[in-house]
């Protein structure tokens, strides 16, 4: 049984061993400033490697994956081995114990984790330190900055130099400096080593990088360090001298430059049309032809010469005449050392005048800030006068017929008022309550009057004078049609109209339905309303007369008609006045 357990145990352990992510370090404990190679390896193929977290340690490079496979054939047994390794180069920056969190890898869909790893970093012995120092003293990057206090838009030259007294085998840029807030332009450098003596010590000096930086914003801008991976050739201490007297060892060393801070100050309050040109520049304008024919091209050339951020100067705002067709400028430049040496920038405008006439291209200006004199200067171009003649090649008539529609493309505010009438500042309105009082008082009075009229005022209206007037009006209204008949000499319908009007009046006045109209109802209603007996008789007599006249007309028609109308009027007035 014991044997079985043993076999099982061995079996399990080998199985698990095959699935392990191993961590190894080339030195542990390490010395401050030393490089450590940490490798994660597994004996199968794996993918999706997740890097551990090297807190407190600096990762120089990695993860660098590599796979190896070996095929062995021993005693007739073949074996295929594959292993995957991820390696990191770590630099111990300070002493202490550092925990590296587990890394993980996926094998056949399963995630395998390594064990956490601990690295001890100890202070180096004096000899070690001396060795470190010897390297630091003999191999370093020097950053030279032409100026440390600049204004926005000013340019500085930054040079990175590698100084060494060691035998360098190879150098490789491992990280480029980040240049936040700068516009950088690299200059050509020769990386050949030259001999230079600094403080009485001879160094091999190579210019690695040279760039012109233009500050784009104000504040403390830092130029981050540049890091270089150097391989140093060293004579080996080991005694395994080979046949060729070799014994040469290659040591890799990472060196970095110091970070440089540049103070960039804001420009003094710039004038309105300042576009950011800094340096010392001159501007010139040329025109190839001052007399031309319509529709012939003219070239207007604007040249900016000088030093500074000339490359960043934008085309000027030139007010070309409205009748000119203007194309976008052709921009060409010759920049030397990023503008630190006299450079030239050209803007070439192609103009096509469309109509004949005299035109001027006004002078345009470029405002430049000179950081040396700390002053703004305005550079102006010349004003050019152009005489455009009619083009005889093209039908002149045609071009005159080709009328232009006046259009305003640009909008601006209207001009100011030239006169005014000033008033005191106050709310020029009536107080709300005052307004309500003044407005609603008459309404109140009107309502009062109305109430007075409806309740008390009826008697007032009954005054005889008023009543007569009213009765007269009613009579006239009633007998309107009859009157019309007289005017038209319409004898036949006149009496009919009179009759109708009288009956209608009676019916309306005493609220009698048309079916009940008869001479009896007339007498009863007249009686009940205490109207004079005489009036009643007249009323009935008139109705009779009308009836009679319709069938037996009188000899003098007009006189009869007038007479009847007059009678009818009188009766209506009498009825109206005697009614209460």
């Amino acid at each position, binding site marked *: 049984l014991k044997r079985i357990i043993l076999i099982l145990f061995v079996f399990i352990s080998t199985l698990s061993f095959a699935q392990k992510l191993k961590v190894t370090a080339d030195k542990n404990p390490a010395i401050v400033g030393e490089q450590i190679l940490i490798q994660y390896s597994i004996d199968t193929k794996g993918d999706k490697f997740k890097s551990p977290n090297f807190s407190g340690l600096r990762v120089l490079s990695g993860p660098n994956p590599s796979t190896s496979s070996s095929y062995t054939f021993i005693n007739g047994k073949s074996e295929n081995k594959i292993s995957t390794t991820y390696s990191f180069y770590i630099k111990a920056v300070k002493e202490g114990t550092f925990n590296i969190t587990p890394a993980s890898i996926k094998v056949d869909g399963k995630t395998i984790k390594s064990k956490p790893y601990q690295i001890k970093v100890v202070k180096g012995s004096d000899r070690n330190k001396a060795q470190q120092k010897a390297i630091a003293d003999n191999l370093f990057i020097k950053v030279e900055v032409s100026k440390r206090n600049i204004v926005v838009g000013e340019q500085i030259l930054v040079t990175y130099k590698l100084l060494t007294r060691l035998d360098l085998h190879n150098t490789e840029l491992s990280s480029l400096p980040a240049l936040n807030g700068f516009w950088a332009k690299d200059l050509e450098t020769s990386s050949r080593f030259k001999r230079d003596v600094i403080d009485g010590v001879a160094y091999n000096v190579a210019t690695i990088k040279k760039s012109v930086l233009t500050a784009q914003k104000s504040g403390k801008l830092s130029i981050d360090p540049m890091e270089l991976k150097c391989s140093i050739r060293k004579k080996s201490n080991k005694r395994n001298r080979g046949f060729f007297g070799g014994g040469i060892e290659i040591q890799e060393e990472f060196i970095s430059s110091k970070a440089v801070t540049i103070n960039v100050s804001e420009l003094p309050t710039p004038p309105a049309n300042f576009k950011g040109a800094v340096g010392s520049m001159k501007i010139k304008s040329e025109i190839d032809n001052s007399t031309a024919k319509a529709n012939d091209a003219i070239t207007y050339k604007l040249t900016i010469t000088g030093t500074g951020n000339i490359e960043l100067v934008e085309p000027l705002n030139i007010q070309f005449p409205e009748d000119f067709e203007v194309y976008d400028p052709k921009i060409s430049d010759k920049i030397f050392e990023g503008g630190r040496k006299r450079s030239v920038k050209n803007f070439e405008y192609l103009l096509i005048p469309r109509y004949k006439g005299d035109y001027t291209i006004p002078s345009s200006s470029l405002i430049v800030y000179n950081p040396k004199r700390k002053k703004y200067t305005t550079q102006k171009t010349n004003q050019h006068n152009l005489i455009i003649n009619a083009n005889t090649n093209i039908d002149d008539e045609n071009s005159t017929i080709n009328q232009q529609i006046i259009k305003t493309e640009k*909008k*601006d*505010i*209207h*001009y*100011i*008022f*030239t*006169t*005014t*009438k*000033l*008033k*005191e*500042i106050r*709310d*020029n*309105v*009536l107080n*709300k309550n005052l*307004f309500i009082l*003044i*407005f609603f008082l*008459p*309404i109140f*009075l*009107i309502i009062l*009057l109305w109430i007075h*009229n409806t309740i008390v005022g009826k008697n007032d209206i009954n005054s005889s004078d*008023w009543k007569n007037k009213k009765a007269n009006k009613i009579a006239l209204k009633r007998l309107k049609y009859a009157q019309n008949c007289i005017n038209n000499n319409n004898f036949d319908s006149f009496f009919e109209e009179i009759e109708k009007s009288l009956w209608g009046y009676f019916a309306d006045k005493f609220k009698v339905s048309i079916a009940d109209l008869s001479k009896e109802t007339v007498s009863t209603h007249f009686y009940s309303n205490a109207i004079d007996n005489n009036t009643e008789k007249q009323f009935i007599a008139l109705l009779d007369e009308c009836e009679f006249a319709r069938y037996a007309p009188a000899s003098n028609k007009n006189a009869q008609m007038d007479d009847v109308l007059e009678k009818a009027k009188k009766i209506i007035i009498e009825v109206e006045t005697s009614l209460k």
Partner: protein
Amino acid sequence: MKRLIFILSLLFCIQTFAGEQLFLQANKEYVNENYTAAVSLYDSILTKELESSELYYNLGNCHYKAQDWANAIWHYEKSLKLEKNDKTIQNLELANLKIIDRIEEIPQLFYKKWWSSFISIFNTFSWQLISILIIWFALTIKILSQFTNYKKEHFLSILYSLALISVFATYSSYQGNITKKEAIIFTSSVVVNSAPTTNSTNLFSLHSGSKIEILDTIGEWINIKIANGSSGWIKESGCKVL
């Protein structure tokens, strides 16, 4: 008493004359493109407690030329409050194109548009006078007809309806010009909150030059509404009341 009134009115005349001289002086500065000098001269007229729609208009132009859009808009709006003028309206439109916020106005119903353009024919004071005159005229006619037996019922009813229309117009005009408080945002960016507390939800943000209507005030917070109908709370210090 009469003498006092005379002296006071004389003083006022002198004051306005001095103000108008200043106005002409400021105009000269404007022509010479010294906009800051022109602004200070125009402002000195305002400190004399004198104003006019043209004065605010010219101030708006100065600020426009100096690219101070919020101030330009504020003065154009102020000018329009005193008197409607096409030049002012067009300049205000241009100034409104320069600012960051573009507030889409809710289109009004046609009758509301007609009504508001009808109201803007006269200012509030004129509307008040018109309605008062009409109603008093109606009263006189009514009284006259009472004693002369001379009836004018039709004419009177026309007068009554005119009075009714004009009193409604007065009310709307008063609401629109006197009761309604408006302001222009002056700080470069203001966050509009959902409630008058700093930690309430931020609804949207407004930038300088935008016109707002003030609905309510609680302490240093004001409830605002903008032309597209959204509303919220901002601190009073961020804007200048018209």
